[in-house]
Structures are given as C-alpha cells and as structure tokens.
C-alpha cells in the first residue's frame, strides 16, 4: 500500500534537474511548422515532398527523443503529467483535425496530404508533451513510502 508524502518544499523542487524535453520538443515543433509553411506556400499547386519528408523525419526523431527522455525521468509528477496530457491532447487533436480539414477541403491530395497528415500527428503529440512536461516538472512528486 502506498501513502503520499507531504508536499516537498519549494527549494527541493527548484533543485530537481530535468532533461531538455521542452527544448527538444520546441525544435520538433519548429521543424513541423517549417514543413507546413513549405507545403502551404505551394498551394494550390502540388508541392514537392522531399524537403517536407526530411523535416518530418527529423521532427519525428526529436519527438521520439523527447518521449524517451520523459520516460527516463524518475521524479516527475506523473499524475499531473497525464492529467494535463490527455486534455491538451484532446485540444490539439481537434486543432490538427481542423487544419487537416482546411487542406482536404482545398484539394490537397496524395503524397502531400499524407506528409501533411503525419506532420499534424506529430504536432498533435508534440505540443501536449511540451505542455504536460512543463506543468509536471514544477509539481510535487507523489512518492511511495518505504
């Protein structure tokens, strides 16, 4: 059976060290944004997908790196991480769906649509990860009693 520890003091929280999850996540977000701008700038023509695919892969690698860093973090407030994560995920899935709708409505098809969809998936996972990690890192950690 586990019990909750008392709220750690502020000093302890500020001294905890965390991996650069948010920073790497922002880099992934920037790559997706650049890829999105590249595709959008060709509308209504069919964009070449080489550069967006490179940006997508690089963004995906950074997102995976962020997830691995989060998973290896031991003293994160996981309850808050998942609480914030699921609601922001819902919000950003809706947001990404809206963007996808606009592109589909405006005749984006085939490979560009696939690349764009994958970019939006990355976007919808990355932003909630950044937000939930930023919230959780400043929250008190629930610890099991010895």
């Amino acid at each position, binding site marked *: 059976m586990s019990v909750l520890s008392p709220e750690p003091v*502020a000093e302890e929280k500020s001294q905890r060290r965390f991996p650069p999850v948010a920073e790497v996540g922002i880099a992934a977000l920037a790559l997706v*944004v650049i890829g999105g*701008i590249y595709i959008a*700038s060709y*509308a*209504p023509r069919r964009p070449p997908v080489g550069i967006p695919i490179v940006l997508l892969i690089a963004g995906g690698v950074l997102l995976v790196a962020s997830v691995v860093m989060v998973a290896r973090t031991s003293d994160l407030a996981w309850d808050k991480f998942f609480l914030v994560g699921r609601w922001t995920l819902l919000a950003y899935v809706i947001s990404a769906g*809206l963007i996808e709708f606009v592109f589909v409505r405006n005749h984006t098809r085939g490979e560009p649509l696939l690349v764009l969809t994958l970019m939006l998936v990355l976007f919808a996972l990355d932003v909630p990860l*950044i*937000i939930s990690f*930023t919230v959780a890192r400043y929250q008190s950690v629930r610890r099991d009693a010895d």
Partner: protein
Amino acid sequence: MTDTRAVAIPAGAEVSTGAPPRPVIQIVPLKGLPIVAAFVGFLIASVGFNWKWGLDFNHVVGGGLWTAIDLFVGLVVGPILGRLSIPARAEFSARFMPKMVLIMPTLVAMTLASGFQLALDVGNLKPSSPNHAWLIVSFVVVGVMATIALGILEPANIAVLFEMKKPQPNGDVIGKLMKRFIYTAGITGLMQVATLIIMTRIATQ
C-alpha cells in the same frame, strides 16, 4: 499569443502573503466552452460551405482581435500590471489567464483556417499574384508566432495556473515561468506589427 506576458511575480515572493482571499482558479473556464464550440462550428461551416462572408468574418474579426489583444496586453496592460502590488497582480492573473486559455487559441484558429481558404479563393496564393510573396512572408511570421506561443508561452501559462492553484504558490516558480513572456514579448510584438503591415499591403494591391 502574448496574453499574459507581464503579470510576472518577482522571484521569491509568496503570492498569498498579505493577499485578500484568492479566487478559485479554474484552468479551463468550462462556461466558455460552448462559446468556443459555437465559434469553431461557425468556422467549420464557413470553410466547409466556402461561405465568403463567413470566411471574411472569421479572418477579419479573428485576426483583428488576435493582433489587438496581443499588442494591447503587451504594451498597455503589461506595464500597468508590472506596477501593481503582488497580491493585485496575482488576483488579476488568476482571473485573466484562464480566459486567455480559451480566447487566444480560438482567435488563432479562426484567423488561420479562414485566411488560408480566402487566399486560395481570391487567388492571392497563385505564383503570378503580386500578393504571393507577401503571403509567404505572413506564413513565416505566423510560424514564428505559433512556435513561440505553443512551445514557450502556453506551457508557461498553464504551468503558472497550476502553481497558483496551490495553497501556497511558489513565487520563484511563477517568476521563472513568467520571464518567458518578457523575453518573447519583443519578438511577438514585432511579428504582430509585421502582420499589420503585410495584411494592409495585401488588401490594397
């Protein structure tokens, strides 16, 4: 989205010290969700049916408010807040920031979704259009603002709200997070001014 940039509380300050009873903080104001849903529904209908007035409404109203709120909060409200007492700042932030959690993403969605479709409909995105280059620049401007807003400001905004919900918020944590708003205010302000120039330019070519 520079909605809350200047409500910083100095490091080390205890928010609750000497303060009047703090308002209960609801991070996402649930009462506002139906209004957001109505605007998003209107946006989807406008895009789906290619409703010219609806697209124009969403783009002009959403974009105008987005830019105006960003600049007004950053240049007018922010400096005033910076001179208020810490309890006053904390109380204002507790009431102000949750509303911005709903307002700003809604305005951004309205502006961008309708703007892209309008640009296609009007022909501004065609390479032969004199506005094509201006639109690409506006995409870059929006891209910079989106990266700052989604990657830096919104996480800080929500983390501050979580901190302020605590019985004894930590001023160090709030101060550290709020510094992000100050650091990015200049970039966002510059981008919004650029948006005003680009959009008025496009409308008159």
